[in-house]
């Protein structure tokens, strides 16, 4: 089987290419996705090979991108929309939460919107304002949408294809600061063999405490686990992958073994995903917990200027600090 080493960006590109090849109804649409290949080059070369009817440079209008994709979906296409940056999804927010999310429900299942909304998200790349946001909770809070995020090239490659093949509307969050990180990707494995889209996965087994992370923070959590191992502590890291529905089966099993749990995300802590996760773990694992579930998150401020983002973003030290606190109880 062909295993190649690819960056997350290239893996996503390969996954999109596969999807375009396999299903003539798949169309990619967004700003600058054509000749430029997207500002992150995730759609690089696709318009050249599939034409401008399949890879569509849209007018500069996000509500238009999502709204017309709804119509295309009703017509039997499978639109894959690229939103250029996290902070620019809000002009389309009404279409996503009021229309995309509810069509299947309102039509009692007669209308399907098999749409994927790709959003490069999160900080850590030194960008100006509106380019570093973590909007996952807005979407995860909306019933009818599914929200997933990949953390490594293999998942990027298979999850994007699974999302496109799915009949659900899916918000597909891509951790932009990880686009350039490399990993092995099995390019020829059939999609049916891929790890299920809506399941979390143990990224590193461990016995002493459980760290739950997703998207850009998985790498940070793994680095923290490596550092903790040097101090003789074995952290289990779980990559949540699916944020809505939230799959916590692996997390429950893990926390029942370790008795300690730290949840990590970049988005502000207030009413973030970590709150939901901590509540559910407390309900499910109450008698196994040695200490409260702790959260390591961004602060409850707007995303700050780039020169202080390293302080804003949870890093290895803050994760280890939280792990220490769970042991101090």
């Amino acid at each position, binding site marked *: 089987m062909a295993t190649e080493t690819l960056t997350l960006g290239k893996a996503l590109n390969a996954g999109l290419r596969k999807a375009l090849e396999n299903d003539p109804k798949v169309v990619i649409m967004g*700003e600058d996705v054509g000749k430029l290949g997207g500002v992150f080059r995730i759609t690089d070369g696709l318009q050249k090979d599939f034409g401008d009817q399949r890879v569509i440079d849209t007018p500069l209008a996000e509500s238009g991108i999502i709204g017309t994709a709804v119509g295309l979906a009703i017509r039997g296409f499978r639109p894959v929309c690229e939103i250029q940056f996290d902070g620019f999804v809000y002009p389309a927010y009404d279409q996503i939460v009021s229309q995309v999310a509810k069509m299947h429900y309102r039509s009692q299942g007669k209308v399907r919107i098999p749409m994927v909304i790709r959003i490069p998200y999160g900080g850590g790349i030194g960008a100006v304002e509106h380019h570093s946001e973590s909007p996952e909770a807005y979407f995860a809070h909306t019933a009818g949408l599914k929200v997933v995020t990949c953390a490594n090239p293999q998942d990027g490659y298979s999850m994007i294809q699974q999302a496109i093949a799915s009949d659900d509307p899916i918000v597909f969050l891509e951790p932009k600061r990880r686009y350039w990180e490399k990993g092995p990707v099995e390019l020829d494995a059939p999609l049916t063999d891929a790890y299920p889209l809506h399941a979390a996965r143990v990224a590193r087994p461990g016995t002493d405490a459980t760290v739950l992370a997703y998207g850009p923070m998985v790498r940070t959590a793994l680095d923290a686990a490596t550092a903790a191992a040097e101090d003789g502590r074995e952290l289990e890291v779980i990559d949540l992958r699916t944020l809505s529905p939230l799959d916590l089966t692996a997390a429950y099993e893990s926390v029942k073994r370790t008795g300690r749990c730290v949840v990590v995300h970049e988005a502000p802590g207030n009413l973030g995903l970590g709150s939901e996760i901590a509540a559910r773990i407390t309900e499910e694992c109450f008698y196994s917990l040695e200490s409260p579930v702790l959260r390591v998150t961004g602060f409850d401020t707007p995303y700050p200027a780039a020169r202080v983002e390293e302080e804003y973003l949870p890093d290895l030290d803050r994760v280890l600090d939280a792990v220490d606190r769970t042991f101090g109880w």
Partner: protein
Amino acid sequence: MAKGDPGAATRSKRAAPRTKRAAATGEPELVQLLTPEGERIESALGPDGTEYRVDFTDEEYRGLYRDLVLVRKLDAEATALQRQGELGLWASLLGQEAAQVGSGRALRTQDMAFPTYREHGVLYCRGIDPIMPLGLFRGVDQGGWDPNEFKFNMYTIVIGAQTLHATGYAMGVAMDGKTGSDEGEAVIAYFGDGATSQGDVNEAFVWASVFNAPLVFFCQNNQYAISEPLERQTRVPLYQRAGGFGFPGVRVDGNDVLASYAVTRHALDNARHGQGPSLIEAYTYRMGAHTTSDDPTRYRIASEVEAWQAKDPIARMKAFLTKQQIVDESFFAEVDEQARAESVHLRERVLAMPDPEPVTMFDHVYPNGSPELDEQRAQFSKYLESFEGSAH
């Protein structure tokens, strides 16, 4: 040229029939007062028959030239600073100096401007220290000037959003009774050709029209929205959109500082006198990349850039000043030297711009603070102190 209220654009409204007084360089309906060769055109007619002319003193002509050169030089310095890692990003205005200086100088002190992220030339005309936008692009702040003091709002990165803010502000001007005379206030909203596709911009057109807001929509059509050419945004000339919304639209040669001034001054005066909104399409070209992280070779051909180079806004002003013997050679040398000195000064100050203290990220979230946030700040400070002596 004196800051604030220079020159005078005179105007008179004529009834049809329209004559093509200034049929400019192949573009229909392009108001032009200075050709690429530096020839002055006495007056030019807009699509509704408005006659545009300017009447500047030699000193004012020199001032406009100085503005153009300074703005270009400071912009070039910022691009260089980005290349050297001192700025995270820079959105250059190269090629758009005339549209920005022309419209910026047409503003009166009482007028309010709502910019995008590229309006460094207008910012300069508003009397704001050119270091100000560099903080945003360096990543140390989010733009440091006081919008109320300078009547120049914050840069807006989300495309088109500011057009609605400008509309609301202009509605407020009218509600405050500040229109209807020469002392009236007018508002200007800047945006690009790409932005005209946004819902917000179209909603702004609707609102401004319905409420007769004293507002000038100033679209710098620089032919591209990142990689996408104008044809991806529209099938009709942008200025013609205005008609469908119920207000006048005009296309001006955006590389002609005189015409940009005349057309903007006229539209602002109409607005301040209570005649409602209008749309100006400044037909121009982005000579450089969209921003420093863009690669225009993927979507743009060199011959196109060359063709626009021949229409350079500074070169034509220089040719005009020389031909008319308004200046001698020493003037150009003096302006160049001033631009060089100011850019060196800018560079020094950028290099000296310190990173903010991390705790400042908790400042200004709410006007009166919040106990929860105060607690977070305190914990964060304690956490930072725990690294005392380490790299933190």
